[in-house]
């Protein structure tokens, strides 16, 4: 028995059919072709599948697709505008804060959520907020600097 | 004359000889001479070892020439991660 689900993904209305035990991650990647969201573990331990669900940061591998009925999802594909990258994306590039890049989509989404919630995060707050985003390449140093730099730039732009 | 250090793993082939001086001009003549002295040496080397000429590690040395008075080692071929 398939579930019929109406949802909003990256601002666009979407409809899909899914099994009741399918996850949001599976639907995003396999049914909606939004492969920017990555699967690193499938158990909520790595953060590579991070998305915003009604603006709340979650692991899409731990959300049933059926739960998306009537809800809004933002994936990494929905963070930049056609005109410009989000400051988090731009600063990750400028700081060379990615090596292989597999964790980057999750970091982008999580860091955007951090700055939306806390425009002036300390290093410690940034590290704890991003503790659920495993990165095996960078040792986190440049990621933390890039995210704090993005927050600073956004504060500057809005003041 | 090249100063040649023989790999410890092959000392059973060389009868314990560890070091010798040879007048070889290139890798081919070096190996011909070593294989003549220690039968089986060439095969053992080609399977597992790189050549080192004056500190420069060469994995596939067939066409190498040996500078005068060079220091020659054989080193297990290495990869990495």
């Amino acid at each position: 028995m398939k579930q019929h689900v109406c949802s909003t993904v990256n601002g666009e209305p979407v409809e899909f059919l899914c099994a009741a035990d399918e996850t949001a991650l599976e639907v995003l990647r396999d049914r909606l072709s939004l492969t920017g969201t990555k699967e690193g573990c499938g158990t909520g331990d790595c953060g590579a599948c991070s998305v915003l669900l009604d603006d709340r940061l979650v692991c899409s591998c731990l959300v049933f697709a059926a739960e998306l009925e009537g809800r809004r999802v933002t994936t990494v594909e929905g963070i930049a505008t056609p005109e410009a990258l989000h400051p988090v994306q731009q600063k990750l590039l400028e700081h060379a804060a990615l090596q292989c890049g597999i964790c980057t989509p999750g970091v982008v989404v999580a860091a955007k959520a951090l700055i939306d919630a806390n425009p002036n995060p300390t290093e410690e707050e940034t590290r704890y907020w991003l503790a659920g985003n495993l990165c095996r390449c960078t040792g986190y140093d440049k990621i933390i600097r890039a995210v704090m730099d993005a927050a600073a730039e956004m504060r500057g732009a809005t003041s | 004359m090249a100063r040649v250090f023989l790999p410890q793993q092959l000392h059973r082939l060389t009868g314990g000889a560890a070091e010798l001086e040879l007048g070889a001009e290139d890798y081919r003549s070096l190996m011909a001479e070593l294989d003549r002295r220690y039968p089986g040496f060439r095969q053992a080397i080609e399977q597992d070892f790189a050549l080192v000429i004056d500190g420069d590690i060469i994995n596939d040395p067939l066409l190498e020439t040996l500078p005068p008075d060079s220091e020659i080692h054989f080193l297990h071929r290495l990869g990495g991660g």
Partner: protein
Amino acid sequence: MESFAYQAPDSLDAAVALLAEQREASVRTQILAGGTDMIVQLRSVDRAPRMIVDIKRIPETRSIKLGADGLILGAAVTGAELSARDDVTAIYPGLVEAADLIGSTQIQGRASVGGNLCNASPAGDTIPALIANGAICQIAGPGGWRELPVEDFVVGVGRNALEPGEFLVALRLPAAQPRSADAYLRFTPRSEMDIAVASAGVRLAVDEDGVCTEARVAIGAVAVTALLVPEAAEALIGTRLDDAACAAAAAASTAAARPISDKRGTEAYRRTVVGVLTRRAAVIARDRALGGQA
């Protein structure tokens, strides 16, 4: 039933009716709150089809009511929602810390206090904090409502006292005494993203002279269920919560622990550390109570 099904009732009555109906039809059901434990288990341990009943669209499971009678905490309230409430944090800082320790920011956005309790892991972070606070489970089911103290709700590893057709709607915490506070600490090798190797929750109250008048101590990850440790509480009551009293409480926790050795820690280690955590949590709760945080 050959495949999974999913329903999200939007009222308590609808949920109770749905669960009763499925029970009649002998359909296996499972309650979904945050899903952070359930989906992992469904992928790895038990793949059998069932009906998933999502209780997050029921208003009572999502509300936080803080009043003169205490706190009513909806079972599906997430850690992130709870820690955003400064008024709750002021009175039950230990409970909020416990909820805040469950997983990453991402998990915080989903995992609920009620789900953490129902999952009944020996290492569940909110359970000792709830027990220390004297929390009561409010349960809806075919027979109506019932209430059960948290320490009686968890009956074994992964097992709770819910009967078929029942589900946890909310948790009720008694109103805080003047000059009282709670604290919760756990030990993990990493700073985040980890499961408690041992944990301790303490709630206590002091009189105007700083003498401890009431205390409850609960410990986690050192037995098949979280344990209420009356001996540790007794070691604190009547004292000024000085080093000796806190050390005595620590010793009582260590003595009460019945841990196992596993991949997360050895038996001896857990015994020692649960004492350390009890002592440290008692000191934090004392300082909070004396600081007038209650």
